[in-house]
């Protein structure tokens, strides 16, 4: 069997498994649908959280980001994992004790206001759709490359599978599917990583390989080799950073509080039986995530060395097959600037605009012709960052089944996150908008029906984004983190740790944070991209890190408004006392 047939087989098998679980775990009550009945063991919840949170971007794009940006991209590693410390200590145990279904539920009750609840729902939907757009694009890329179907058809297949287990199985279906998806994706990520590190350093543990000596007899460590390769081709040294310190600090902090504020991650902690399990499962979740995240730097390093050595100064006609495969689907492009038929890979963008726009013609050597302008520098090649993980097995000549495994893993990563997001969107709409705001008399069965209906609608919108992607995967996801940081994290933390913040303060804070962050990002990324540089940024903070300031705006607004206007009612201060202790003095709130 060739790689494509194997991919069909692996992806098909994993799909059969997911559908089987969906049928086995079909739910009958809203409690099952929203929080899987509340009885998921902590280790299992940790695994499900890891799969929920590790998206197509983690699987496909982060290694690419790291490979191309070197140390600058380390802010993503720090930010995304460090957020779990905040989540475990500041949010998860208290929200589990509060014991309801959704994040807006907590905000609505704690700030005794339907308006606060609706504002929270709006923030949540905003974040989740920004995030889901990236996932569906990821599914499309994987399908188009490995199964050689149209990107659109790939998106439709993905939608069909998610429909099955998210809409039928709800949180219960999602939880057990995610446990399986974690196993699939971590195996798929580790196998090529282990192969690569044995090939380069004889050391089977990819975490250690990065600092290990290369086995090519040069006596250099992998890191030294990287610095040498990158500087020789005119890039910045791999271990050097080009970001300002203030911007790095802001981005890390923003991604951390954003991670802690992601609604589809928070709700996962509602599914464990006890507060103490919520703490433990945050630890397990991060441990499972770090199994992959400590491997990413090595994968990035090897693929960068590999790419540079196999592309640079190679004649196009004798180039390895993977270059032409990726060129055919438009993620690699080469234009012969100096007419020697040999590919030169240097720093700088080869064309303007950066992304290749293909014409139908082929050039002298059989390469695809572009309509882009050629730039003045020596670089002749464009490589899309998102392909690094997928291209690795081919670059390193690994067996076909590894290629197929990567396909199954990437699809698992994208689908598990998409399903988690669909669920928070649908439960917020059915539970917070319909049941709690407009139709308090809704029966459990009717609510379940509406939750499923909302999931279907959300899925259709997600599919639309998959077919018409707004921007490339990692950037879109970064935007979602900024919004989560600026809108949801502050009111939850204030709601738990302060008894003085009231209704009006929380509402004004959320709106101020959201408007500020969104305005800043839209202005620099969409309205005026030409001004998007250090000179024009507020305090030197880029749009990726602006969520930190958004969160501060949120905190300060809430604080000032509450001290002028708000009086927190006694029932609410009692409730705060109650969520602060895990058990014992008062009765635990049941779902």
């Amino acid at each position, binding site marked *: 069997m060739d790689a494509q047939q194997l991919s069909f087989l692996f992806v098909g098998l994993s799909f059969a498994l997911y559908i089987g679980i969906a049928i086995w775990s079909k739910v009958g009550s809203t409690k099952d649908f929203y929080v899987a009945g509340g009885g998921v063991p902590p280790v299992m919840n940790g695994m499900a959280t890891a799969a929920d949170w590790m998206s197509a971007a983690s699987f496909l794009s982060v290694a690419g980001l790291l490979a191309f940006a070197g140390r600058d991209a380390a802010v993503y590693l720090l930010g995304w994992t460090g957020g779990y410390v905040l989540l*475990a200590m500041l949010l998860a145990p208290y929200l589990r004790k509060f014991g309801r279904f959704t994040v807006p539920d907590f905000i609505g009750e704690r700030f005794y206001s339907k308006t606060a609840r609706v504002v929270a729902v709006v923030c949540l939907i905003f974040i989740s759709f920004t995030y889901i757009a990236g996932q569906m694009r990821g599914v499309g890329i994987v399908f188009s490359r490995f199964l050689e179907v149209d990107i659109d058809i790939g998106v439709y297949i993905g939608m069909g599978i998610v429909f099955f287990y998210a809409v039928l199985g709800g949180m219960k279906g999602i939880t057990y599917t995610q446990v399986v998806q974690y196993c699939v994706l971590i195996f798929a990520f580790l196998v090529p990583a282990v192969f690569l590190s044995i090939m380069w350093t004889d050391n089977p543990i990819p975490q250690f390989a990065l600092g*290990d000596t290369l086995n090519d007899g040069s006596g250099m460590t992998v890191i030294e080799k990287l610095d040498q390769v990158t500087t020789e081709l005119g890039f910045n040294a791999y271990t050097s950073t080009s970001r300002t310190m203030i911007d790095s600090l802001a981005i890390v902090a923003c991604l951390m509080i954003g991670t802690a504020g992601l609604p589809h991650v928070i709700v996962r902690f509602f599914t464990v039986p006890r507060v103490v399990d919520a703490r433990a499962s945050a630890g397990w979740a991060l441990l499972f995530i770090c199994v992959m*995240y400590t491997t990413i730097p090595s994968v990035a390093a090897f693929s960068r060395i590999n790419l540079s050595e196999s592309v640079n100064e190679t004649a196009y006609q004798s180039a390895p097959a993977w270059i032409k495969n990726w060129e055919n689907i438009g993620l690699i492009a080469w234009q012969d600037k100096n007419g020697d038929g040999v590919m030169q890979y240097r720093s700088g963008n080869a064309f303007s605009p950066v992304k290749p726009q293909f014409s139908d013609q082929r050039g002298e050597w059989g390469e695809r012709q572009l309509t882009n302008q050629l730039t003045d520098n020596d670089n002749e090649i464009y490589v899309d960052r998102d392909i690094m993980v997928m291209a690795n097995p081919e670059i390193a000549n690994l067996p076909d089944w590894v290629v197929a495994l990567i396909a199954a893993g990437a699809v698992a990563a994208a689908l598990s996150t998409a399903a988690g997001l669909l669920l928070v969107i649908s439960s917020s709409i059915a539970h917070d908008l319909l049941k709690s705001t407009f139709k308090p008399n809704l029966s459990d069965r009717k609510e379940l029906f509406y939750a499923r209906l909302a999931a279907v609608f959300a899925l259709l919108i997600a599919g639309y984004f998959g077919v018409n992607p707004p921007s490339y995967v990692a950037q879109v996801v970064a935007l979602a983190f900024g919004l989560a940081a600026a809108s949801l994290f502050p009111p939850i933390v204030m709601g738990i740790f302060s008894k003085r913040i009231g209704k009006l303060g929380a509402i004004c804070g959320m709106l101020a944070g959201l408007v500020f962050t969104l305005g800043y990002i839209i202005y620099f990324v969409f309205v005026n991209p030409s001004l998007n540089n250090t000179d024009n940024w507020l305090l030197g903070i880029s749009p990726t890190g602006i969520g930190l300031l958004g969160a501060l705006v949120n905190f300060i607004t809430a604080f000032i408004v509450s001290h002028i206007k708000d009086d927190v009612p006694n029932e609410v201060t009692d409730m705060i006392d109650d969520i*602060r202790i895990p058990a014992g003095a008062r009765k635990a709130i049941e779902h």
Partner: protein
Amino acid sequence: MPVEERLDIYWNANKRVLYTLLAVWAFVTFGCGILLADWLDRFQFFGFPLGFWFTQQGAMIFYVALIFIYHFWMKKIERYCGFIEQDPVKLTKQLLRENDKGA
């Protein structure tokens, strides 16, 4: 001890745990990972420049450890204050078993 008093002890202990662990968290992330990174790079650790190691692997190992330390520390405080939570799943099973014996 009356409940209100235990509540105070518990919440204050909880805050102390948070301050301590979050201080370590902030030092590892912002200190070792960013502010002091250039200086730390002068040291070698498993073939890595130390500051670079913190951003690629070190900080993550600290994060996992911090959460588990938090988990066990809070468990200890809860045992001391008497706020121990029964596992509803186990409890139900136990009740069912006792019921079977009775019948």
